[in-house]
């Protein structure tokens, strides 16, 4: 068990922030390569003529999940050392519903707005300024929500811990579902191709 590295060695602040920057570079590169610096490419998923958002997200999740399961399976990585955000079902459901509204209205999510700003999208800058305003408003105007979330917290909950089914089986299930979904999305994109903007 040598991974995660953070569990076996102490990073200095400079190394920690340097790693964040390097990993972020890969993150941003991927987002822009996928077309996620463009609000029209992102929102296309909600009009079904271009499902790239689901394809990229789903594939990324399955890839990372399979990697974690494999590294843990060969005894290199200790899954228990990974940070798991505590589940608070009401908060995640409500927050998700609100977030989805912001996504379709604003055209971005927080990470992709950075890719948009980096490639000169003025609406990306407007979205990022909205994010700054919203986070500040949350802190200043509704400080009580944090207490409500904390009160409803149900602790660390993952599908393997809740169901008792090993992570590897979920990987198999998700890969199978992704293959099926890829076929379905191809058909969907064909059906809604008339919504695609003309170049």
């Amino acid at each position, binding site marked *: 068990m040598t991974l995660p*590295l953070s569990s076996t060695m102490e990073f200095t602040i400079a190394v*920690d922030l340097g790693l*964040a*920057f*390097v*990993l*972020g570079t890969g*993150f*941003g*590169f991927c*987002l822009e*390569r996928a077309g996620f610096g*463009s609000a*029209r490419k992102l*929102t296309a998923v909600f009009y079904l003529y271009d499902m790239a958002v689901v*394809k990229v*997200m789903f594939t*990324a*999740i*399955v*890839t*990372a999940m399979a990697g974690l399961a494999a590294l843990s399976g060969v005894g290199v990585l200790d*899954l228990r050392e*990974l*940070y*798991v*955000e505590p*589940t608070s079902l009401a*908060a*995640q*459901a409500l*927050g*998700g519903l*609100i*977030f*989805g509204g*912001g*996504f*379709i209205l*604003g*055209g*971005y999510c*927080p*990470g*992709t707005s950075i*890719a948009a700003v*980096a*490639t000169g*999208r*003025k*609406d990306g800058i407007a979205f990022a*300024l*909205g*994010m*700054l*305003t*919203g986070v500040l408003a949350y*802190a200043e105007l509704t400080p009580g929500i944090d207490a409500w979330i904390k009160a409803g917290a149900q602790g660390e909950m*993952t599908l393997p811990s809740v169901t008792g089914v090993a992570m590897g089986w979920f990987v198999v299930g998700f890969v199978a579902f992704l293959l099926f979904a890829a076929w379905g999305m191809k058909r969907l994109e064909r059906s809604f191709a008339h919504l695609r*903007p003309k170049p």
Partner: protein
Amino acid sequence: MAHTLTDGGLRADRAASAPTVPQPYWNPYLVGVLLGLVLLATYAVTGRGLGATAAFGAVDAWLASLVAPAHVSASAALAKYFNDGSPLMSWTLFLVAGAFVGALISGVLGRRVRWTVERGPQVSDNRRLALAFAGGCVAAYGAKIAKGCTSGQALTGGAILNVGSLVFMLAVFASAYALAWFVRKEWL
């Protein structure tokens, strides 16, 4: 990337008048695998995943500390981002700064950097900018309540099968699909 060079050479005479043609995006499944490997590397090195929203909080805490430092330490929600007086030394802010550079590199290589507004043909630039700002405010609220966004909850939590993250992801898509019809003129 030999074809890029030839391409550029052929187009050089027209470069001054016509904008450079953006290259197509990469295959989404290929990018998905690469993004998954970035996420896996982040987990393997740091023990936690990606994120973005905390970077906005860090900038907020920094800006607020310039105006009213006492207020920042008094506000529980902002103090979390204050990082004992150095809000800009935030892990997520450095991640996001890296993301900016990575996206810029990709955009320049793909000739996709444009000073423009992304919108459908039925909406004006100013209206789109106002909606983008409003959307940012709303998304920030959602991300704060859900304790994460598409990066911090959906991707990061999804990869370890975090139940709350999967619920978040379903809620995001359910909400956006339900509202898409009402804002179609912004995009189609």
